[in-house]
């Protein structure tokens, strides 16, 4: 391998040759980008299930993909399929049904839903118990439920459809899962295990119970009216995140392979950083050290100094805690320059797409570089005096952006940061 295809550490450079996405803003990266950069919100009232009695009644669901009732893994699979079709087609890599690399997939945890359990309970005359459900299950009239609710099935179907190679990885690092999927693709290419990888984040799990679970943790915005104004990262009156759905896919490829076949190169993943936080299950270390270290490691892995970053694609959930912690951590990493370094949150428009978020925001980060335009943080009406940052308020901004760091932080102390660039460092 020629040294032009290696990074400063002698590892294969990782190029991006395909991108695809679907969110509440629309299908495909062209529509998503045009709506994102005019500051449009995809958040709306939930119609998928009754919201009577709920404190939060809004989300960025993707509603137009089924004309029948569906389970969360079915929607997650469809979102992944749409995003991956777009990414693989753009890459021109392999042949239909024969993608020449492994699959790394961030998928939401799945379980039997109420609809299926109600079906199994139908034959029960007395109080319903799991023994009764088991007795009905033993009649084996619903064998399709088994495969549908196995954790590995969504990735299985994607692997079958695209013909990815080897054992597909289904992974979760909570709200940083999408970034982890990309990181694992980078690692596989750097190891020389593969010349290309299909990396996907998907989440179609807005259901009554999933929403109530976050609601019980007081994590969600309850400012339902108007829905489009609820997600307001970095604002003083932010009060929680808004659940979103979406899928995003990246085709990663060794620079050498992409060059050899004359593929259009959409950007590079120059660095990945990751640090666990043992402080608390849902809260970050008060000193921000894990997030700081994750960013610093991503920069070091990319062979870059903080001054070489042009834009921070924030995790920016719109929860009081995350945004404060993220602002503090960024200031620790980028110093006094942080006051001038643009940082914005895509979640102000698409909500928090949870398992998919890291991948969705990776695609937006690469589009930011490609278009030279920074998407805004919308709903920024009441600045938080404790977060004196340039959040690109309300209106997109044209700027030369060569290098982006994208942050993803999740429950369970997960902190993953990725560095994207227009060219090798």
């Amino acid at each position, binding site marked *: 391998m020629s040294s032009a295809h290696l990074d400063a550490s002698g590892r294969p450079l990782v190029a991006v040759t395909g991108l695809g996405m679907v969110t509440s803003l629309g299908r495909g990266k062209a529509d998503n980008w045009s709506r994102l950069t005019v500051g449009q919100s995809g958040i709306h009232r939930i119609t998928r299930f009754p*919201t009577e009695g709920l404190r939060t009644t809004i989300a960025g669901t993707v509603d137009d993909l089924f004309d029948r009732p569906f389970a969360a893994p079915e929607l997650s699979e469809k979102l992944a399929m749409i995003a991956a079709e777009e990414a693989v087609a753009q890459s021109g890599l392999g042949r239909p049904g024969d993608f020449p690399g492994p699959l790394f997939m961030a998928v939401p945890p799945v*379980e039997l839903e109420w609809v299926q359990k109600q079906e199994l309970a139908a034959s029960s005359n007395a109080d*319903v118990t799991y023994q009764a459900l088991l007795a009905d299950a033993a009649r084996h009239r619903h064998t399709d439920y088994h495969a549908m609710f196995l*954790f590995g099935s969504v990735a299985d179907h994607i692997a079958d459809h695209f013909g990815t190679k080897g054992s597909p990885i289904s992974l979760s*690092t909570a709200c940083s899962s999408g970034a982890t999927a990309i990181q*694992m693709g980078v690692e596989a290419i750097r190891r020389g295990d593969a010349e290309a990888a299909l990396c996907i984040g998907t989440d179609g799990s807005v259901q009554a119970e999933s929403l109530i679970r976050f*609601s019980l943790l007081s994590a969600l915005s309850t400012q339902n009216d108007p829905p489009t104004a609820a997600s307001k990262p970095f604002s003083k009156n932010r009060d929680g995140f808004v659940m979103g759905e979406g899928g995003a896919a990246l085709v990663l490829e060794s620079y050498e392979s992409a060059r050899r076949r004359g593929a259009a190169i959409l950007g590079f993943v120059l660095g990945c950083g990751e640090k*666990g936080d043992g402080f608390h299950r849902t809260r970050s270390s008060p000193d921000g050290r894990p997030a700081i270290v994750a960013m610093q490691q991503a920069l070091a892995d990319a062979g870059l100094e903080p001054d070489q970053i042009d834009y921070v694609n924030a995790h920016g959930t719109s929860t009081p805690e995350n945004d404060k912690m993220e602002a503090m951590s960024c200031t620790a990493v980028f110093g006094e320059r942080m006051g001038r370094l643009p940082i914005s949150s895509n979640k102000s428009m698409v909500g928090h797409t949870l398992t998919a978020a890291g991948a969705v925001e990776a695609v937006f980060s690469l589009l930011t570089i490609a278009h030279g335009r920074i998407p805004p943080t919308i709903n920024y009406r009441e600045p938080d005096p404790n977060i004196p940052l340039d959040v690109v308020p309300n209106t997109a901004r044209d700027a030369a952006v060569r290098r982006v760091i994208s942050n993803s932080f999740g*429950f369970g102390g997960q902190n993953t940061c990725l560095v994207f660039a227009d060219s090798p460092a």
Partner: protein
Amino acid sequence: MAREVVITGIGLLSSLGEGVAPHVEAMDGARPPVIDTVSFAPYPVHPLGAVEYDRQIPKKSDQRQMEPWQRIGVYAAGLALDSAGIKSDAEAKDRMHVIVAAGGGERDHAVDGQILTGLKTAADPGVFLNERLLSDLRPTLFLAQLSNLLAGNISIVHGVTGPSRTFMGEEQAGVDAIRIAHARIAAGQADMILVGGSYNAERRDMMLLFELGGVMLTGDVVPTFARDAGHGGMVTGSVGAFLVLEAADSARARGATAQARLDSVAADRTRRNPADITRALTAMAGPLTGAPLVVSASSGVAACVAEEKAALAAIAPGATSVAMGDLTGHAVEAAFPAAVALAAALLQAGRGTEAVVTGVGHHRGEGLARLSRA
């Protein structure tokens, strides 16, 4: 240049007890398997006995924040750290990576039953569901259900705070966790990784998922490799299994004992056409010299058992083989890590020089690891 990967820590917890000794004794027939045929009848299960969780999870508040699958996993992870002699090395644990194979979603069975009963007569089922979930779900239950919160609890309880990933996907998650951990260390992307998983078999919600697919064994427990289409399926067991994998040079540098060498880990995902499993296992085994020990992580599902037997007859004829499921019950995500742990313990005990560990998921995924005496 691939680096040599060794196992420097083993943490095992099951119905047989904790540590490797009771598992080796069970393999030798000196300790009978523990099987409960009553509590979850008609499904036999290998239940976890009393565990003094305080010994690995000192804070009661931490224990309360976890459901059993997480407590089992955190406990076994602690055993592995002890075994590797790294438990008190805060600096090493701050850098140590974690890969966990996990399921998740332990349900509140009583609440589910009550809600399902009420839904039958509710005037407006959707509204009823909202009301009941809001009032009956414990807020912190969610955190005991999230798949990555076993890894999260390991970082909180044991202070292991390097990069951390959680793989899902039933048995194959366990295979891929060890495969990726091995590959990352061999390639120099990590020096030390805590890898493994846990499974709580004493929960009807998981039995329900597997019974829907008709993959649970009911009635008499027969040995895994004697199961066939007439009497096959999974007998599950509660198991926590973690390993500390380490670059051999890193282990040497800190004076740690290599308990076994992990030479290779391969994984495949066939379409499960006839003979696919046999072909995949045979190909992954490659050429073997001598008569290796074989530890199988078989689920006990009849079609898989038959093909695995055919593969083993071809790749390791006459080998001493043991089905982990016969000792501890089938542990789904933790099955392959547990089988690798036993193989490593047997090699360290001088029971052989080479071992093969096979994993065949009950629905998908095939894996094979090769180990040798360190």
